[in-house]
């Protein structure tokens, strides 16, 4: 009998987020119905001090822009980046 492979995504933390979470990334188990919003909620539960606001973060999946309802696939890397406008 084989075991079903567990599907996960990585959520990476850069800059100020890393300073608060004290880690470069965390893994999150997903199903075929997991979306970006679920990853965001997961981070909010795990790290309430991050105060991620979906109105101001730039969401990327594998370094490409994504929306809150984007479906996640196994081994994706999700980031919630700050907006950067340049000085």
């Amino acid at each position, binding site marked *: 009998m084989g075991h079903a492979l567990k599907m996960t995504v990585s959520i990476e933390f*850069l*800059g*100020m987020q*890393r*300073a608060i979470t004290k880690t470069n990334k965390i893994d999150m188990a997903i199903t075929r119905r997991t979306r970006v919003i679920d990853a965001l909620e997961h981070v909010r539960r795990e790290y309430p001090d*991050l*105060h*991620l*606001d*979906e*109105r*101001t973060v*730039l969401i*990327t999946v594998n*370094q*490409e*822009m994504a929306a809150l309802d984007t479906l996640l696939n196994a081994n994706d890397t999700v980031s919630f*980046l*700050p*907006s*950067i*406008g*340049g*000085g």
Partner: protein
Amino acid sequence: MRILRQARYEPARVVGGYTDRILRVDLGRQEIAIQELPPDFKDKYVGGRGYALKLIWDGTTRQTRYDTADNILVMASGPLGNEPGFPGTGKFIVGTISPLTDTFVDSNVGGHFGPLLKLAGFDAVAVSGVSREDVVILVDGDAGSVSIAAAPHYDGEADEGSLSFGEKLLKDAGGGEYSDSLAAVTVGKGARNTRFGIVNSLFYDRRRNRIRCKQAGRGGTGTVMRFKGLRGIVVRSSLSKANGNNAVDREAVRQAGARLKEVISDCDHKQLNLGAWGTTGLSEYMDKFHLFPINNYQYGQSPESSRLFAKVFLEGYFSKKMPDGCYYGCNLACAKGAEGVELTRGPRAGRKVNVDGPEYETVGSVSCMGIFDPHFVLEYNWYCDEYGLDTISTGVTAAFFMECFQRGFLTAEDVGYELTFGNIEAADRLVHEMASGEGFGRVAGQGVARGKKWVAQKYAARHGTSEQAVMAELNKFGMEVKGLEFSLYVTKESLAQQGGYGFALKGPQHDEAWLIFIDQVHKELPTFEHKANALKWFPLIRTWFNATGLCKLPWIDVRNPEAAGTSEPAKNIPTLEYYVKYLNGTTGSKKKLEDVLDDSERLYILQKLINLRQGKGTRASDQIPLRAMGPAYLNEYESRAEYYDKWLQEQPGGDKLPASPEQRHRLLMEKRMQAYQQLCDIVYEKKGFTSDAIPRRETVRTFGLMDDQAKRLLDEFGV
């Protein structure tokens, strides 16, 4: 101090952000005069940039160069430059004909000089002529006097330095004590010996109980000041800084300021965290997206970059838990500083110094030289400030020569030592040589554009080849446009930012347009039309901040959550509305954002006319180095071959890739060059220019700029 000339005056009161007066000083004739402006002058030529542009347009000619007596050095704040109730005020600009570009340059700088000058009764100070001896100008609003004095001699170090001279000058002027009623601008020996000397803006910081400095860094404004024999200007006013603009509607200003402070307070710590980290926080994000310049922009990412991320500076150097605004009332407070940093190299090795910075650009200047040592960043920062050198042009010029060395265009015999990437000792030596005008520093201090010619002559003579052929090669990686060195972002993968640098009227500095993220990462500018619209809109609003005496960071780097509900979140319109209210509350105008953009566009067109007159205004002057468009050499292509091949496949007809890497690289660069030319066509049309980038007559007329000089100029160009 030995006073050479003194004039008495009755300080004008600031009303609605203006005094309607310019202090004119001719150092050649030792004349001091006050120019009274008609009330409508400020409406047409807004604030710092507007004043400087109009003075340069009227008062200089196409023969004017940085070192001719008729060149004018203008320092001017704007109507919004002095309000502690609103974040990010206190800015002023230094504008002049640049030694690097031979055309107009303005550099935006913080500190207390602009606000105090205004309180002392002047919207601007404009200096012309060349003094026979080194002098300082003293503007004393309390005493009602303006003096030209012989530059005081303190000691060997201060007489050559910018920071050390300024510290002593301010103490001198304060009767032996520092005071927040005093501020100064100074230059150092780097301004005498290079074309990229800066003007330091020094002020007393009560919290740190020391003199701090900010820099008008770009374009060699300090070199102009030093050439005029002007070592410093001190300004004094004891008038209250509260309501410094003397707003027409104080309550409207208070409300707008409170709203912006609230957004910053609620959002910055969740976003870029500039209040804690300063702009060094950018390094990590730039590296992540291949935008961090490594080895003269050959690469945008390095495994060693993390040694230059914000955490390193925060934990190792920055004084923590201390608000660090460069002017009163700014709760973004991103002007970081470090105390007691021990110098390990150079003539002051062993001494502990106070460093203001580093900013991201200084960090990027060091990575551009292939160096990833954070302590060197601090030392480099301090020495450049003390010598009065632009950290950007210094680093980018050094990196250019390092690449010349790498590719065999330069030898150790030419330089006097091995000038290789990552070689801290060589980089350090070159900085001191540039500042002193000694050794290879004499060549490097001329900047990249002139450095290319020097290398081409040298190499062509040695190898019996044509200079033209060598120049063609050097043009691929000499990172300058119009004579100004690039600021520190890799543009290879953002066509919009290539335009942002190429079309920038002063040369490739990001204060006109920084579109990398919304283009390359957000993908909000998918078409040429989108990019062209952004390349018109952003320069207008961004340079309006320079015109009015404001810092743009509270707008552009703190995203207002309400922007999410707008059609173009990157413009952060809800925050911009606070600025329009602040403007109207201060001056009594009833402007809308569209009016603000029109005011700014008038200045933009005027600057374009100056560029045209000075030989830097046509399409040819907007062309960028190959490296700015993509991987100039095969080694760069190969470092991201998978990415570039995918990019090629996504282009029309990209289903069949050429077989060899060399062919794919060539095809890639052909497509990039075509795209840039296509962008030029569309952007010029959008801006009201001909295809050769010359403003059309109706464009000039629309903004009321068709004077006799403009008519003659357009006639010459057949427009």
